[in-house]
């Protein structure tokens, strides 16, 4: 993307903030979570969550969803304590993003988008645990936010993006390949601009930027991990909502090689079994998305 286009994109993204739909909670939330986790005051988080009724409600629904299996979480306080700060961060960002996009601006529909994002979050976290990646909750957050740019594109160029997604689905192609052709930039690039603007953690921004380009030598293991999870989701009915022509040798992927270098025990990973476990989790992923994110669209 040339610098002129990039600047144009930056300006358009800045105007997003003025939109009434962007929850006030986003900026303070991101700022709060810049601190080390043990220094974050739970009270502050509870206060923030309670501030926005929609988000508080979504947070409660998430805590009460089958994914967390807790019985009757009735207060925001209970939800925050029970879920833990890291998970609350991810949920809050997810819920905030969800309310950022007005119902008529969703291009990839909300249900599909959140099934893919939540699926990718869960698969990333599980893979992180299996291979011994140090911060599985970070992997979860990165998985949840990796396609942030899809929402940016939906907001800043809704109609062009509709054509783009339509074409990608007709050609059965990956979205980022068609975005390049239609918009001149991809959701990786637009997501990065918003991520920087919101001051998301640097490694999460890297995931947003590099999850389709894991061969990028500067990218760290987290980008490789989310890259693989993203592919796995797209071949297990947790993709962009259309049939993509894909035949992927995951263990032959550059991202796999990168991860094995960092986490040698990964060579023993039983990929077939892991894939079947994703299928096993499908019902609950769908149930959660349907109760938490998709209700209003």
């Amino acid at each position, binding site marked *: 993307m040339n610098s002129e286009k990039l600047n144009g994109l930056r300006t358009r993204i800045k105007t997003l903030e003025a939109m009434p739909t962007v929850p006030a909670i986003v900026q303070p939330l991101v700022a709060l979570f810049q601190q080390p986790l043990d220094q974050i005051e739970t009270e502050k988080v509870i206060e923030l969550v309670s501030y926005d009724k929609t988000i508080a409600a979504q947070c409660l629904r998430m805590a009460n969803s089958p*994914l967390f*299996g807790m019985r009757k979480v009735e207060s925001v306080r209970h939800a925050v304590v029970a879920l833990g700060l890291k998970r609350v961060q991810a949920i809050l960002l997810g819920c905030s993003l969800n309310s950022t996009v007005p119902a008529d601006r969703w291009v990839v529909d909300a249900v599909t988008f959140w099934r893919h994002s939540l699926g990718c979050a869960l698969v990333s*976290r599980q893979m992180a645990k299996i291979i011994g990646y140090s911060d599985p909750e970070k992997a979860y957050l990165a998985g949840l936010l990796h396609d942030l740019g899809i929402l940016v594109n939906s907001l800043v160029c809704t109609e062009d993006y509709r054509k783009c997604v339509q074409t990608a689905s007709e050609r059965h192609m990956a979205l980022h390949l068609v975005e390049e052709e239609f918009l001149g930039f991809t959701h990786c690039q637009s997501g990065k601009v918003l991520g920087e603007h919101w001051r998301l953690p640097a490694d999460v921004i890297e995931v947003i930027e590099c999850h389709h380009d894991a061969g990028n030598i500067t990218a760290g293991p987290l980008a490789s991990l989310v890259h693989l999870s993203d592919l796995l989701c797209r071949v297990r009915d947790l993709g962009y909502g259309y049939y993509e*022509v*894909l035949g*992927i040798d995951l263990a032959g*992927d550059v991202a796999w090689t990168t991860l094995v270098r960092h986490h040698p025990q990964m060579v023993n990973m039983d990929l*077939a079994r892991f894939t079947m476990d994703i299928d096993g989790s499908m019902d609950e992923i769908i149930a959660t998305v349907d109760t938490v994110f998709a209700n209003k669209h």
Partner: protein
Amino acid sequence: MAIDLGQGKTGLTAEADLSDPAYLKIRDVIYQISGIYQPEEKLYLLAARVGRRMSALNAKSPVEYLEHLTLRGNREAELRLLLNEITIGETYMFRSPPQLQALRTVILPQIIEAKLKLGFKRLRVWSAGCSTGEEPYTLAMFLLEESDKLLKGWTFDILATDLNDNSLAVAKNGIYGEYSLRSTTPELRRKYFTQVDDKRMQASDQLKALIRFDRVNLSDDSKMLFLKGMDVIFCCNVLIYFDLSSKRKVVQHFNSNLLPGGYLFLGHAESLYQVDDSFRLVHFPGTIGYWKPPVGYSDGGKP
């Protein structure tokens, strides 16, 4: 290893015995021996099947049943009976659309491109362990439907083998009831079947002409050595009945039966983990296949 969805088990409280760790152990024994895997969230399915075997054996608990599978003298026979319960009723036509979709969108285009370079226009598919024939007839319909598209100008044939003479006789006869045809569209039924009576239909001569049925024991080295030039092999829920060393041998045979760049498909819950590393696991939407890389293929590239 289940995908960890958060905190602890969910939704299993109504059937209290599902939390019995013996079920996970039974699941793992099945996986180790047969390669058939049941994700934790689907244990209730396994429990129902184990339940049927438990009452047949008068076993009082899953733990006691686990003993039948692991310690008792009849464990091999018992495993076979359990696997029969697990795979029961899975045979019908168009059972796995994702496999056919992968063939249409990725595998055939790949093979066609590679073969055209060499001037070949012939395709061979093998249904190994074809049972009563639903799979080879599905493949025959699939290939015929592609014969004026992807496979225009190509010749193709299907080898369908099984060990069981009775199954083969049914397959050759090609008469099927509603269960076998339940996923076959009216259009395909009209095109490729004729009505036998009000409940059954028979495969047309056009379908039958594409398929060569033969009795093959996959453990019979001398016979396996002569089956060459395959592009794609389907072997669904067959290897699960072999012990590890026989399974390895069969899979090695499959590897040499296949042309370079060919694919092997197994049943949807089957895995070759720790059975074979000459194939590469390839993910397609909704299914996984095993790919025999061409000579000179190295890691880090993509098929």
